[in-house]
């Protein structure tokens, strides 16, 4: 799935019944604007975080996604982690403090 800038994703249909994919917006600290992503419901959170990080130009670190200030378990699928269609997610680095 490729990232799109938010303006390109507006106006799409609202009917997500039976969709196998989730359309979300991801916010990253260094980008004033979010990016839209469309991911399979069964995609792992960790893989989605890595893809979002790359799309925003991040390299290295331990990218992760959060929803409503709760960091999502990278080993779960997006669906199991509770991600819903049209959710707003945030990209963060969850590397340990030292």
């Amino acid at each position, binding site marked *: 799935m490729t990232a799109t800038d938010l303006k390109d994703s507006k106006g799409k249909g609202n009917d997500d019944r039976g969709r196998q994919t989730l359309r979300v917006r991801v*916010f990253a*600290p*260094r980008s004033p604007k979010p990016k839209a992503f469309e991911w399979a419901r069964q995609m792992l959170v960790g893989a989605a975080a890595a893809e979002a990080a790359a799309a925003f130009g991040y390299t*290295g670190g331990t990218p992760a996604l959060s929803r409503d200030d709760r960091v999502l378990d990278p080993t779960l699928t997006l669906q199991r982690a509770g991600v819903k269609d049209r959710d707003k997610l945030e990209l963060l680095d969850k*590397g340990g*403090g*030292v």
Partner: protein
Amino acid sequence: MAALPHADEVRDDPHLIARAFVERPDELPAAIVLSKRRGLLLEYDRASLTVRLRIEGPAPELDAPPEPYLITGTFDDYRALPPIWRFVHPVTGADVGTAGYPAHSGESVMHPSGVICAHWNRLAYSDHGGPHPDWGGPANWQNPVTGTVALTIPDMLDRLTRDVAASRGRMAPLPS
């Protein structure tokens, strides 16, 4: 790409280069947008290359009022050196050591000695009184060997505000 400053300009204003880095779109402007998104106000003093962010964190007791914090960041010599990040007295702005900091929790970057322990904080390095002689010196901050990575001001503030939100009270009581 912006033209490089002339040597005379740098001599007259030694912070010229650091200021140019701080004011890049993905640095301070993005940090201001991030702060607004969190309902916070990021203050910037251009002359001293310092930012200040007031934020509240959870108290240790469930029904107690939130703990106020004041984060400061100084960017002289940015990006050759990492910024100097501190938690200071939330009212006076004085350096009060551990009392300024939220308590360590989980994977927090708040070191119990009262320093933000991350590659992107100059004070974490032993050259500057910090606990880390093993990171290759502050000039190597953009090549972290371990731990959390944050290479821009908004990334650093994102980590700090998240660690505040995950804390439960301050590291030590504020001086009366």
